[in-house]
């Protein structure tokens, strides 16, 4: 059953050192900023973070990196105009980086959520990102064998949640949220608003309640402050 939280610190309680944390968002769209800020306060360290990008500016994921909590980043596009925090750590040899093509990153997390042991993927064949990976020719096309990426925790930014735990997203902020929600042992979503079970049209639910353990209701948090 999904727990509904008004306090971000309660929502992220219990995340362990050494966890793999999947963090949604493409740049700032869909980034669960309040949850990441709460994770910084929570204090878990030695984290592996899976996120499309490696932080923007000095807040959110960048602040988590700056606080020295992240041992390794797995992402498709760490380098951005405002990724100076990551850039500095990387050049100083203070953080590991695994670069994964964006679609393969998504598919590896989907595989984790869907119980697929591994899959043959055409992306990256013959490139440095396939170095050392098993390959196979199937029906005349070359593929690289890719393994699931499973999270201990997923932090996801959605739009509206219901009390049953269902989520809907908004426009391109949907991006990695629905996939990450399936791929983690503990999925925590922040939403702009929580409604009663039955208020979301069951045809339009994007992340079914089964994938959502905790919801941080930003509407409540804002109303209370």
């Amino acid at each position: 059953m999904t727990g509904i939280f008004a306090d971000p610190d309660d929502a992220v309680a219990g995340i362990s050192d050494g966890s793999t944390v999947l963090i949604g968002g493409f740049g700032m769209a869909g980034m669960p900023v309040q949850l990441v800020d709460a994770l910084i306060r929570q204090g878990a360290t030695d984290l592996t973070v899976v996120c499309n990008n490696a932080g923007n500016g000095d807040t959110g994921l960048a602040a988590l990196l700056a606080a020295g909590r992240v041992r390794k980043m797995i992402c498709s596009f760490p380098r951005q105009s405002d990724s100076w925090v990551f850039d500095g750590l990387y050049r100083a040899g203070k953080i590991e980086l695994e670069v994964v093509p964006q679609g393969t990153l998504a598919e590896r997390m989907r595989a984790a959520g869907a119980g697929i042991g591994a899959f043959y993927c055409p992306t990256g064949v013959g490139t440095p990102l396939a170095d050392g990976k098993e390959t196979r020719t199937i029906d005349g096309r070359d593929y690289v064998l890719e393994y699931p990426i499973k999270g201990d925790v997923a932090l996801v930014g959605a739009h509206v949640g219901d009390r049953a735990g269902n989520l809907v997203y908004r426009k391109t902020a949907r991006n990695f949220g629905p996939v990450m929600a399936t791929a983690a042992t503990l999925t925590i979503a922040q939403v702009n608003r929580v409604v009663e079970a039955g208020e979301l049209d069951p045809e339009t639910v994007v992340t079914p309640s089964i994938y959502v353990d905790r919801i941080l209701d930003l509407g409540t948090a804002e109303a209370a402050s």
Partner: protein
Amino acid sequence: MTVVPLPTTVEHLGRGPLGRDELAAVVARDIPRGSFVNLGIGQPTTVADHLPADSGVVLHTENGMLGMGPAAHGDEIDPDLVNAGKIPVTELPGASYFHQADSFAMMRGGHIDVCVLGAFQVSERGDLANWHTGASDAIPAVGGAMDLATGAKNVFVMMTLFTKEGTPKLVPRCTYPLTGLACVSRLYTDQAVFRITPDGVTVVETYGTTVQELAARLDVGLRTLDDR
């Protein structure tokens, strides 16, 4: 999911075996509050009737829905809203629909807490045979049985312990074609409830019979909770 273990094996004597309805009630009793549950076609479906109204249990049907309600009647019947047995059903608040790849990803990925299945045979190591009698002229049809057996976190089986001819259905090795290997964790039968682990079979409760009588009729080593 946490199932609170009984302290000791209980022999319910002075009564006969469980009736079908009673068996469904016993299974329902063991489903933890708030679980996501898939009930197989046929007898397992009746477990839903015995879940308390406030159980918080959410039913999954593998043809693409979470939050399935009871069977539909009269005006409620909608040909677009059926369960895995193709019976018209209803929708509860908080429901969601999804396509087949997503529905079985949910199952295969280990997100369903409990599924309840019928069986032809269960082996002492938890192998399940429930999709094919092995008869040479039978038309094979598996549906979601293998996906359910492989994917759910806990596979509960409900069946009679013996065939009409008196042959045990809890066996050392399944002779019927397998559905899944070492997947059954709980076996609910008219005569007894069993827990199955890699260590073997433990009798949790008996109904109208004793552990000793069962041990005499089954070709499977039985332990009791008291053996621990």
